[in-house]
Every structure is written in structure tokens, then in C-alpha cells.
């Protein structure tokens, strides 16, 4: 089994806010991230797929294909967008790094599974070089 990882970057703004809480509690729990005018990050998305190299090509997956899937399914929706306002899955879910990792999995998994090649193994999302979240599917 070979694990292959493709990396991409996107830039987006967001804020942390739970509508069922008071403004005071939002500020207490989320601190500066609760500023309703938002702030932004340069995110790094790492997508890891697992499989056996094809005997003819030596590829686990075609990297160009994987790049296109990532751009179509994730970057087109997230890059240079406001995650809370522009992305449906974050209308009622806080766009934390954890939730972005889960959402990116949901966006990518059907296309990767449909290709009947490698399996999606891991999604890692870096909010900054020092902070990341990783999702490995349902565990």
C-alpha cells in the first residue's frame, strides 16, 4: 500500500460564532476569532490517498487528476471566499479547522471513490503553519 499526498493552498476569511449563544459567551469562548467582521488565513490542504501503484503507469493516482478534483470540489468553493457567508456547510456550523477538515473529506470522498482507484485516507488542513486538523474518515 502506498500513501500519496497532494498539497494545495487556499485563502479564506471566517469568524467563529454560535448563533444559539449570547454575544458575551461567543466572545468568551472564541476570543478574537469571534470578531464579526471576520479575519483570514492562508490555508494548506493536504489530501492523502492510499492504494497500489498501477502496473502500467506506476501511479497510485494521476496527480493531475487529483489536483483537478481538489480544485473543483474544494478550492472553487473555499478559495478567496468568506467561509461563513459563502459556503453552505458553514451557514450553521462553525468553520473551525476541525470542521473544515471534515467538510473537505465530504466534498472529496465521492469523486475519489467513484474513480475506483485509490481510497481517500486522510485530510489535513493547516490554518497556519502551527495549527492543523486531520480527519481520517469515520472512526
Amino acid at each position, binding site marked *: 500500500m502506498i500513501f500519496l499526498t497532494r498539497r494545495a493552498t487556499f485563502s479564506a476569511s471566517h469568524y467563529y460564532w454560535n448563533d444559539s*449563544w449570547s454575544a458575551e459567551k461567543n466572545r468568551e469562548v472564541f476570543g478574537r476569532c469571534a470578531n464579526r467582521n471576520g479575519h483570514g488565513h492562508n490555508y494548506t490542504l493536504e489530501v492523502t490517498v492510499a492504494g497500489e501503484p498501477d502496473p502500467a503507469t506506476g501511479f497510485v493516482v494521476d496527480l493531475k487528476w487529483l489536483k483537478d478534483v481538489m480544485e473543483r470540489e474544494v478550492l472553487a468553493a473555499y478559495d478567496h471566499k468568506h467561509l461563513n457567508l459563502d459556503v453552505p456547510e458553514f451557514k450553521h456550523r462553525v468553520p473551525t479547522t476541525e470542521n473544515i477538515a471534515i467538510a473537505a473529506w465530504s466534498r472529496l470522498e465521492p469523486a475519489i471513490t467513484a474513480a475506483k482507484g485509490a481510497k481517500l485516507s486522510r485530510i489535513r488542513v493547516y490554518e497556519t503553519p502551527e*495549527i492543523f486538523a486531520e480527519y481520517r474518515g469515520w472512526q
Partner: protein
Amino acid sequence: MKGASKVYFGRRYMLSASHRLHAEALTAEQNRVAYGKCNNENGHGHDYFVEVMVGGPVNAETGMVVDLAALDSVVRERVLDRFDHANLNLDPLFSDRVPTTENFSRAIFALLNDAVPNGKLEQVRVEETENNFFECVGGRINDYGASYSGHKSDSSSG
């Protein structure tokens, strides 16, 4: 999108420390052979990157596995305040153990294991330089936990 599955949250920290790789049980010549430049009598230092990974369900209200500020506070108190700008060989944890990065990663895992604010400590990765790193995923860490208690009571004396 299901909400209760496990997510891993990772956070990187940096600390600068000195050390010397030297095993008392070996002769001077054996130490030089085993550790090479790292056996230099007066020690040397590194900027270590410590990556802490905590796994658990995402809290439905906060969207978080673990509160970042609370995790930072624990890591600062238990690891950074203890090892940053210190000589690892002089720490009680390394009184009878060579401060290799293997042992250092295991020691940090033991120091944090029962202290993460939420979720479970899954992995501690320590990068000694940009070309080598070590990952501890648990295992034989109980002896380090005992040393941590000892350090707390010793700390007032110096």
C-alpha cells in the same frame, strides 16, 4: 456531514535547548563511536519543534476537538517552561537516561498524557533539526510519568 467522528487536532511549538548524548555505562571511546559529534563534552543545542496531536470528537457547539488556548497553557506549563532555554541533561527526567530525541519525545508524551484539556493525546512529534524527527504514539511511558511527579516536588529547590 456527520458530526461525532474523531478528528485530530495538531499544534506546533518551538523550544531551544542544549544537550549532550553520553551514556554513563559506556567508555569514553564507546560514547564517541556511538554518538559522534553529539558526544561533545560541552554539549550543543537545537531549536526543537514539538508537534502535539490530540484526537477526539468535534464538540457540536464549538466546532473544536480541544480549546487551543487551554492546550497552549498546558504545553507551556508542562513542557515549554521546563525545557525551553534549558540543558536537557540537567533535567531529572534525563538523570539516568540519554536525552536523545527518541527519549525526549517519549518524555514529552508522558508529561502531557494525563493533562490534555479534552480528547486523547495521540502523538508527540519532535523535530530535532529539519532533517530528523521522532514520533511517540504512547507505549512505555509510565516510568516518565513517575519522574514528572518527582520533578514537581523538586522544583522549589532549584
